[in-house]
């Protein structure tokens, strides 16, 4: 019996080496976005970075969550390795829950490390708070710069997302920026909250 348990543990360890994951895909319609390539009516991107935090894997049948240890993932389109969320090996799940951005509790905890280290340039220095999402690029010749963040009422920009998983990819649409009538958002404000909502609502697993 003990030997069986030992073998089982061994198998879990082995399988976790080649850990499975869910890949996040910043998209423009059906296209996977690549940096500095034109999409739609001449939109190109030179920076797309965002936080995915508070990840939970959810099993609808038993109504239980699985909580990975890692608090937040800083995803950067320029490094494909960062666009992955490792999935649990020994927990069957039907849904994924996460926060797009960083919640207010984490925003008030002082100096953090790892992906939440302010050295990554995803933290405002003039006013406390993580930048949840940075999207920068060109529309024709015109620059656009969206630094979306804000953790306190009424400009809490982080968004909770829950999706049933039908594949190992999650796409979200940057076409949402077309609906914004300004080309620069650089602080917590209404526009930052609205655009964050639109991006969060565009996540899908197909």
């Amino acid at each position: 019996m003990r030997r069986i348990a030992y073998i089982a543990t061994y198998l879990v360890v082995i399988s976790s080496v080649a850990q499975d994951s869910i890949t996040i895909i910043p998209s423009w319609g059906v296209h996977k976005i690549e940096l500095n390539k034109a999409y739609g009516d001449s939109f190109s991107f030179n920076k797309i970075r965002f936080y995915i935090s508070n990840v939970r894997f959810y099993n609808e049948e038993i109504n239980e969550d699985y909580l990975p240890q890692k608090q937040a993932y800083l995803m950067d389109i320029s490094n494909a390795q960062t666009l992955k969320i490792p999935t649990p090996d020994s927990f069957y799940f039907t849904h994924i829950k996460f926060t797009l951005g960083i919640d207010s509790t984490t925003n008030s905890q002082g100096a953090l490390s790892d992906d939440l280290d302010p050295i990554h340039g995803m933290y405002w220095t003039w006013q406390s708070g993580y930048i949840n999402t940075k999207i920068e690029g060109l529309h024709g010749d015109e620059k656009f710069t969206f630094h979306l963040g804000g953790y306190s009422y009424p400009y809490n920009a982080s968004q909770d997302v829950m999706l049933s998983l039908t594949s190992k990819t999650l796409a979200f649409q940057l076409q949402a920026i077309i609906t914004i009538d300004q080309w620069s958002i650089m602080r917590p404000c209404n526009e930052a909250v609205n655009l964050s909502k639109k991006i969060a609502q565009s996540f899908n697993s197909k």
Partner: protein
Amino acid sequence: MKILAFLFLSLACYFSSSEIIGLRPSHFPKPNYSFNSSAESILLGRALFYDPLLSKDGTISCASCHSPYNAFAHTDHAVSHGISDSIGTRNAPALFNLAWQRELMWDGAINHIEMQALAPISHPREMGESLPNVLSKLQKSSIYPPLFHATYGDTSITSQRMLKALSAFQLSLVSANAKYDRIVQKIDSFTSQEKAGYQLFKTSCNSCHTEPLFTNHTFKNNGLKMDPEIKDVGRYAVTLQAADSFLFKVPSLRNLSYTYPYMHDGRFQKINEVLNHYTDGIHNTIHLSKELQQSIKLSSTEKVDLTAFLLTLNDQEFILSKTNKYPIKILKPEQK
């Protein structure tokens, strides 16, 4: 029996740990930050605080605008002074009793003391430096790897470790040894003039500059006319809420003799100018704090009495404290 004694001792240590290292004065309320930093961490933070290495061109340290001789404010400078003779827009506030503060800065833009240093380090008119550059300079120096090792057990230099050490030093700046504090502890007494001033203080000032910290840590409009050059909208710039327009943090009245000039833009040089503002200079707008809606009336004798009381809040021991000063043995070891 032995076990019981041990349990009792551990509990006693647990409940009075902050008092054991002597940082929480017994007549102060419970602080918002704990005083559990090690002596090594405070020393590392002190070295960082006084080191101009933190600025882009190596000319400005935290202490450039926060001098120990001025209770960590900046005498004779109305507003802050950064690299390349840059001038800021606000008066460098005094630094003491920070463990009792919540939001930091005149407008409360910073929500945690560990994140505060990022603002002056990266501001182009203050230290103008980036966080990665600061860390790389610290890693290359001969001074810091041993200090980080002493504090954290290895020489790895990260932003989290640096920010926590800077915070540990600043939290250790507790000022609670003024004459006022000795009177509270019943080991000294007011002169009759100071006593008269204290009565006036309790009637006219205590609702915002609340004892024993002499601030209630709120944001108020105290009737200053906006400087038309700077056009500082105060806390509104942080929250974008109309109700926060032209509000600034209520500063502590401790150590006033050392921290002039006064107000968020350093417009007043003398305590008397401040008192005259409150009795005769209030600029009445819809933003004016409710405490000032009814004007404060003080005769010239009463102003002298009130000033005598305010001077009992000077903590000379804090100003002269050797453990708060430039750590010469660490930063200039060749000089001794």
